C-alpha cells in the first residue's frame, strides 16, 4: 500500500543534492575567505562597497518600477482576456505568451535595435520599456488564470446585495484575484532584480543591475564575494516571497 510514496525518494535525493546543497554552498562560500577560513568580511565588504550598494539600489528601484508597470498594464489586459463578454476567443490569451518562445536575449536585442532605429537614447527609459516587454506575459498569465477560474457567482452575489459594478470590482473581484497578483509580482520582481545581460543590451552598458555584478565577480574567480552578493539577493527573495505569501500563491505552471 504505502509503497508508492517511496517513488518520491530518488527525487528527494536529487533535490537535496541539486537544490538544497547548492543554496547551502552559497552561504558557506559567502562566509569564507580565500583560504577557507570563516569570515564576515565578504558581507561587510558589500556594505562598504559604494559601487555595489548603488547598483543594488538601482536594481531594487528598477525591479519595483518594472513590477508596477507590468501590473498596471497587465491587470486590465488579464481582466479583459478573462471576461467572456469582452473577449470571446482563448487564442488572444495565447498570443500574449507566444513571444516567450523566442529566445529572450534575441528578443531583447531586437527591442534595443528597434529603440535605436526609432531614435530613442538607450538608458533608463528604454530599460524599463524593454523589461516590460519581457515580463508583461509573466504578470498577465497568473492573473488571467485566477480570473478565468473565479466563480462568477461571487460577483453576482455582490451585485445582488446592492453593489454597483465598480463596487463589485473593488470589494470582490480585486480581493479574490490577489493570489494571481501575488504570483504575478513574484514572477516579475524576482527575475528583474537579478537580471543580467538584458539590462546591458537595453542600456548599451550604461546601467548595470545586481545580477551583472554577481556574474562579473564569479567570472573573475572572486567566488566568495560573488557568493556573498548572491546570499544578499537570496535574503531579498526570501523576504519578498514571505511578504507575498509564496506558500499559497503556487507558481502557475503554464500548459500549452
Amino acid at each position, binding site marked *: 500500500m504505502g509503497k*508508492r*510514496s*517511496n*517513488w*518520491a525518494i*530518488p*527525487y*528527494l535525493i*536529487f*533535490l537535496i543534492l*541539486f*537544490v538544497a546543497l*547548492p*543554496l547551502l*554552498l*552559497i552561504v558557506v562560500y559567502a562566509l569564507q575567505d580565500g583560504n577557507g577560513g570563516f569570515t564576515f568580511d565578504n558581507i561587510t565588504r558589500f556594505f562598504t562597497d559604494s559601487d555595489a550598494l548603488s547598483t543594488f539600489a538601482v536594481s531594487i528601484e528598477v525591479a519595483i518600477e518594472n513590477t508596477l508597470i507590468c501590473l498596471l498594464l497587465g491587470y486590465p*489586459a488579464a481582466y*479583459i*482576456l478573462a*471576461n467572456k463578454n*469582452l*473577449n470571446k476567443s482563448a*487564442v*488572444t490569451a495565447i498570443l*500574449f505568451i*507566444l*513571444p516567450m*518562445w*523566442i*529566445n*529572450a*536575449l*534575441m*528578443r531583447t*536585442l*531586437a527591442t534595443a535595435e*528597434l529603440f535605436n*532605429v526609432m531614435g530613442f537614447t538607450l538608458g533608463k527609459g528604454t530599460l524599463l520599456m524593454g523589461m516590460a*516587454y519581457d515580463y*508583461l*506575459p509573466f504578470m498577465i498569465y497568473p492573473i488571467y488564470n485566477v480570473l478565468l477560474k473565479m466563480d462568477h457567482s461571487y460577483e453576482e452575489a455582490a451585485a445582488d446585495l446592492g453593489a454597483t459594478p465598480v463596487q463589485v470590482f473593488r470589494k470582490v473581484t480585486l480581493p479574490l484575484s490577489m493570489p494571481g497578483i501575488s504570483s504575478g509580482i*513574484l514572477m516579475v520582481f*524576482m527575475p528583474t*532584480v*537579478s537580471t*543580467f*545581460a538584458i539590462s546591458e543590451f537595453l542600456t548599451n552598458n550604461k546601467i548595470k543591475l545586481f*545580477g551583472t555584478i554577481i*556574474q562579473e565577480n*564569479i567570472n573573475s574567480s572572486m*567566488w566568495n564575494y560573488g*557568493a556573498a552578493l*548572491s546570499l544578499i*539577493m537570496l535574503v531579498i527573495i526570501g523576504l519578498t*516571497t514571505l511578504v507575498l505569501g*509564496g506558500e499559497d500563491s*503556487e*507558481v502557475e505552471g503554464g*500548459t*500549452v
Partner: protein
Amino acid sequence: MRKVLSQAYIWFLLIILYAPIVFIAIFSFTEAKAFGNWTGFSVKLYENLFTGGVNGGAALILAIKNTLLIALISAAVSTILGTVSAIGIFNLKGKKKRTIQFLNNIPMINPDVITGVSLFLLFVFLHFSQGYLTVILAHISFCTPYVVLNVMPRLGQMNPNIYEAALDLGATPWQALRKVLVPQLYPGMLSGFILAFTMSLDDFAVTFFTRGTIGLETLSTYIYADARKGGLTPELRPLMTLIFTIILVLLIIINVRQERSKANKTIR
C-alpha cells in the same frame, strides 16, 4: 463601447509586444550585416543558415545542435523523473509532503542567476569538471519541478483506486504504471515535457554558469557572446523568424483542433 475600448487596448499591447519580432522577421530578408540596415530584399541569410553558410555559420549550427540536444535530454529525463516523483509526492502526507513540495518550488521561484551561481559552486565544491553533463544536470534541476506541477493535478482528478485495481487484476507495479497510470497522466506529462523543453531552450543564465571552460555554446550563450563582440551574426535573424513561424503554426493547429472538438462536444 466598453468592448471596443477593451479590444483596442488588447491589440495595442499585442502590437507593441510583437513589434520586435516583426522587426527581426523583416530584417531577415536583407543581407546587411548590421541589424537595422536595409540593403534590399534577399533570401541569402536563409540560404546561409541551411548550407552552414559563410559568416561563422558553422559555429551557429553547432550551437543550435547543442541547444536542441540539451533541451531534448533534459526534458525527457525531467518528464520521467517528474512523473514518478509526482506519483510519490501525491501519496505522501503531512510534513514530508510539505517539505518536498517546498524544495520543488525553490527552483521555480529562484532567479536564474542564483540557480546558476549555486550550481556553479556545487560543481566547484565537488571538483566536477563542467561541460555537457553539468549543463544537463542543471537543466534537469530547474525543469523537473514544472513536470511535477503539471502531473499533480491529473493525479488529483484520477480515481485513486485504479492503480490498486490494476494490481488486483494481476499487474505488477511496473505494468500498472505503464498500462494504467501513464495513459491517464499522459496529457500532464506532455504539457510538462513541452514546458521543460521550452525552459531549457530559453535558458541563458544557468547554462552560462555551468558550462565550464570547454567552449560549449548554446544558442543563448552564442548570442550573448556575439552581442558583446558588437556584431550579431546575421543568420540569427532568419533562424528566429523560422522558429517563431513554426511555433505559431503549431499553436494555431492545436487550437483549431481544440475548438473543433469543443464544438463537437457541445452538440451532444
